[in-house]
């Protein structure tokens, strides 16, 4: 048991860093393309899927991935076809996902209902990050970084203004849909460490923090993943030190980082 502790700490720390880097990277696109409500909705879709997985005695994270990807594939086209603002669709989908999650948990046979599996979906658990997850996260991070580098020019223009990017002859739809799918996958993997109720904080805070310090979107895109990793790692160690839930500690660390960035932001200083 004692010998397992360093392995557990390593696995959790490596998972925290990888999730932080991924969430920090995607948060730049979420904030700049104003997909915040989508990220919020997707995190709860993953939560509902995981709850169904527990209810059906299936792998909750496979179900979480299926739910968040299904949400991603519905929201983008629904918003484009019906010409409804994505905020409106996600505002409707968010409580629906929460309602589904609680129905699935309620329908789960009594003993299972409040097992560690359910609480780990809600609040995250450092114990749930396995070696296989680390491999998936590393592959996902590498793939995301390659995509961002390859299509930086287009993403850069879309982040400035989707309307102007379209007017310049950039087909924005595939990029927006790809970002939505990436959000879905990242949310699902973050669920293990941070939990379904808190994961969305990781989708906004890193980029919101980085934006306080720079007028250059390239620098924001480089610094935001580092902020995400630092938040996850410091939150994780806070959780070890105080024996508090990992997800809650990560959110505390990331929110504290944002609050400090606002206080120290050169963008907010006058005449200095």
């Amino acid at each position, binding site marked *: 048991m004692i010998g397992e502790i360093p392995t557990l700490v390593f696995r959790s720390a490596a998972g925290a860093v990888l999730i932080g880097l991924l969430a920090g990277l995607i948060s730049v696109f979420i904030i700049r393309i104003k997909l915040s409500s989508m990220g919020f909705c997707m995190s709860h879709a993953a939560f509902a899927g995981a709850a169904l997985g527990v209810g059906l005695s299936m792998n909750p994270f496979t179900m979480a991935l299926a739910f968040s990807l299904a949400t991603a594939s519905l929201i983008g086209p629904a918003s484009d076809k019906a*010409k409804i603002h994505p905020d409106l669709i996600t505002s409707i989908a968010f409580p629906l996902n929460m309602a589904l999650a609680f129905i699935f948990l309620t329908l789960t046979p009594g003993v299972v209902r409040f097992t560690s599996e359910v609480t780990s979906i809600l609040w995250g658990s450092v114990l749930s990050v396995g070696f296989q997850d680390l491999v998936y996260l590393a592959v996902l991070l590498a793939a995301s970084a390659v995509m961002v580098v*390859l*299509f930086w*020019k*287009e993403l*850069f*223009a879309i982040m*400035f*203004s989707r*309307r*102007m*990017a*379209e*007017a*310049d*002859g*950039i*087909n924005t739809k595939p990029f927006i849909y790809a970002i939505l799918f990436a959000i879905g996958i990242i949310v699902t993997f973050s669920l293990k460490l941070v939990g379904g109720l808190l994961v969305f904080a990781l989708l906004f805070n890193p980029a919101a923090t980085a*934006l306080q310090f*720079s*007028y*250059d*979107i390239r*620098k*924001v895109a480089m610094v935001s993943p580092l902020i995400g990793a630092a938040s996850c790692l410091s939150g994780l160690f806070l959780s070890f030190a105080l024996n508090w839930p990992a997800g809650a500690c990560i959110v505390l660390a990331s929110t504290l980082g944002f609050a400090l960035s606002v206080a120290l932001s050169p*963008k907010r200083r006058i005449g200095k």
Partner: protein
Amino acid sequence: MSAILLKDVSTTYQGEKKPAIHDINLTVETGEFLCVVGPNGAGKTTLLETICGCLKPVKGEVKVLGFNMASDGVKVRRKIGYTPQDFMVKPDEPYKALDVVLMGRFGKIGLLRGVSREDVEKALKVMEMLEIRGLAGKPVGKLSGGQQQKVMIARALAKEPEILLLDEPLSNLDYDSRTKISELLGEICRRQRITTLVVAHNPEHLLQLCQRIIVVSEGKIIADISGGELEREEAVRALIPGLKVGLR
């Protein structure tokens, strides 16, 4: 082949019964400089956005450079320089003025190809012409309304477009800048044979540059005026009393 061809085009906004523009027929030849005038809410911006494919018409056909905008819009827009009306960037946006100008070329550069030194030089050259090269490294949201407007014009020109669609491009500029920019636009468009449509509520600085004036009212083209500057001015004045069309 006409540069722009609209056949019986009507565009209706979502949730509206009445079209914003209806039964528009318009032919613009390559290299022509047109001014679109009319009162507020006449449909001038809708007309421009329908031509560039930002709005899809509910009826009719829009052809630009021989291509149907309904099927080839994305490809054709790479050859269209467009500046929207009142596009203002918030003060804390993380983009430099040069970034915004350079972005105009992104569609043209194409997928999986990076921005070359030549692209940057072309963007800087246009900024030089518009006297904003000194602002290249400044956050665009920190610039004044007039400076931002010049950045957006530079963005459209940096693309080296075949068609230029400008929606109120001079509205935030001071009198001297309006004169300079309108003369510069006229010179560039003439030299490079760029087909240009400029929407202007008050076209006072553009009248001497344009070869035709399209007057739009209540979603329809009510006049297509060519001829000498004085005749055009008189004709527009007669159609829309109170519209500031001349320098006098």
